[in-house]
Structure formats: structure tokens, C-alpha cells
């Protein structure tokens, strides 16, 4: 176990948590092939799963297709679900998997450079630019706009880095799970995550940098 004083991602699916009784009743209906139960799950969770897919795939059509794959696969394999996690958590994993399968099928983009998005240093180890402070995010409409611009910035990260940031920091997977899904090592996941965060920080720096600095 790694100690993690800074572990941002722990609850990927904040949700009006259904009671255990609701969950097991719903699961029993799903296992019995109750069409109404399928429909309920699709209506209640489709939007959240689509949001997950959009973060990973960015492309809207691909995202919708991945969500459809995920629901079909989930219901087809409902007998294998043992009920040791919430239905939402289980669906979330299947959705992430469906997205990653689509990414693997796509011809790999070679665009993995973070050129210009990583901090630069001289031979003496001093930074090319001094880092400043950031102003506090505003409230209300401006906050909604700000959040949108942050989502756009995340989508701008090269796929190679974006995926790790999304899986670790947003979807709440741990390093080992992320490494397994991406078929790489935990050390590689850590390096990519750090680079992705640095690049996103650079992209956000223009928006948030305090004018007084």
C-alpha cells in the first residue's frame, strides 16, 4: 500500500446512494430479465456513463457508441455480477473498459508530445519562468464558464496523457488499476500522470494566473 496524503480521487461516482435493499431488489430484477429494470438503469445511469466516455474518448459519436456497448455488455453479463459493489460502480468499470477497447482499435495517434506544456529549466536547474499564484475561481456563471474551459483544456491534452489523468484523477482508479487497464507499468502511469498534470497546469496558467504577480 502506498501512503497517500494527496489522494484526490476516491469517490468517482457521487450518487444519491441507493439503499442496499434497493440495490439488491434492482439486481434481482435485472437478473430475472425484467425489462423495466433495464430501462430504469439506462435512464438513471446513461448520462453519467456518457460523461465518463466523453472524458476518455472526446469524440461524441465514439462516446455514445461506447456507452451503448457498455450497457449491452453489462446486461449480457449480469449473471457474473456478484453484487459486491454498487451497480453504478460495476457499470462504470464496464464503461471505462468499453472506451479503452475503442481507443485500442483506433489507429494509434503518434501525437504524444507535450512540447511547450512542460516547465523549462536552464542547465543550472533554474526555471525559465517564475511560477506565480492563481486567483480564486469566481462563483456563479463565471464559475460555470471556468469549469467549461477546464474541461476543454483537459480534452486538449494528447490522448496518451489525457487518459491517465482522467482515469486516475477523475474516474478514481488507483495506479495499479490504471496500469492494468492500459497494459503498462505502475511507474509509467506515475510518470504520465505527473506530466499530464503539469501540462494541464500550464494550460490553465493563462486563465488563472494572478494579475498582481
Amino acid at each position, binding site marked *: 500500500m*502506498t501512503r497517500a496524503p494527496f489522494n484526490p480521487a476516491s469517490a468517482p461516482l457521487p450518487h444519491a446512494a441507493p439503499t442496499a435493499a434497493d440495490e439488491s431488489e434492482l439486481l434481482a430484477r435485472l437478473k430475472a430479465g425484467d425489462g423495466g429494470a433495464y430501462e430504469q438503469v439506462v435512464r438513471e445511469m446513461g*448520462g*453519467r456513463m456518457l460523461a465518463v466516455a466523453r472524458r476518455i474518448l472526446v469524440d461524441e459519436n465514439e462516446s455514445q457508441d461506447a456507452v451503448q456497448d457498455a450497457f449491452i455488455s453489462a446486461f449480457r453479463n449480469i449473471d457474473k455480477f456478484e453484487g459486491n459493489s454498487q451497480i453504478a460502480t460495476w457499470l462504470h468499470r464496464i464503461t471505462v473498459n468499453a472506451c479503452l477497447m475503442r481507443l485500442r482499435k483506433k489507429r494509434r495517434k503518434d501525437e504524444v508530445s507535450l512540447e511547450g506544456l512542460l516547465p523549462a529549466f536552464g542547465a543550472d536547474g533554474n*526555471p525559465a519562468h517564475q511560477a506565480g499564484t492563481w486567483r480564486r475561481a469566481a462563483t456563479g456563471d463565471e464559475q460555470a464558464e471556468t469549469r467549461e474551459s477546464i474541461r476543454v483544456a483537459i480534452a486538449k491534452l494528447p490522448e496518451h496523457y489525457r487518459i491517465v489523468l482522467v482515469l486516475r*484523477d477523475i474516474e478514481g482508479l488507483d495506479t495499479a488499476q490504471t496500469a492494468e487497464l492500459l497494459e503498462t507499468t505502475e511507474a509509467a502511469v506515475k510518470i504520465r500522470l505527473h506530466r499530464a498534470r503539469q501540462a494541464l497546469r500550464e494550460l490553465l496558467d493563462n486563465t*488563472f494566473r494572478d494579475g498582481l504577480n
Partner: protein
Amino acid sequence: MSAGAPREFTDLLNRLEAGGSINCRDCSDFLMAYLDNDLGQDVRDRFEQHLNKCCSCRNYVETYRQTVKLAQEACCPKANPHLGKCPPELISAILSALGRPS
């Protein structure tokens, strides 16, 4: 070495052992390890000594943490309910693929 290639932690340890000190580049390269408490006490202390005297690195650490927090807030379904909307056409498509036209 390409731009942004990760440096090995042992490189840093060797330099520190040879009497070197933590510089701004080290702070940037090993920041996540620092935040994850992966540095070991001795290097951690030296890292913090650098932070105490370097305003730019303190700002960098703080804005890096803010970056992660802002990304989470921007994607949190509770804070952004519109992100959780599913187009009715997709719901219909899924239900009909399941043999349940809505």
C-alpha cells in the same frame, strides 16, 4: 534525452550524496513523489528546505495541487448536473439494442 523525459530518482540521490542540493528542476520533476509521500524522509526534508526559500516552487506546488482539484470540480457530476444528461436518442438506441424499444 528528450524534453520531459523522466529522470531517475537515483540520479537525484547520487547528486545529493555528492553534496548537491535540491534545485527548482528537481522540485518540478519529483513533485508528485513528494505529494504522494514517496521521497523518503531525508529527501523530503531537503525538498521542503528548498520550498521554504523558493517562492516560485511554492507557487508551482500550490498551483499543481489546484490543477488537480479544479479538474475534479470541472468534471464532478454533482457540481455540473448538465454533464449527466443523456440524449434521448441514445437511450432509445440502447433500449432497442436490448430488445426494448422505448
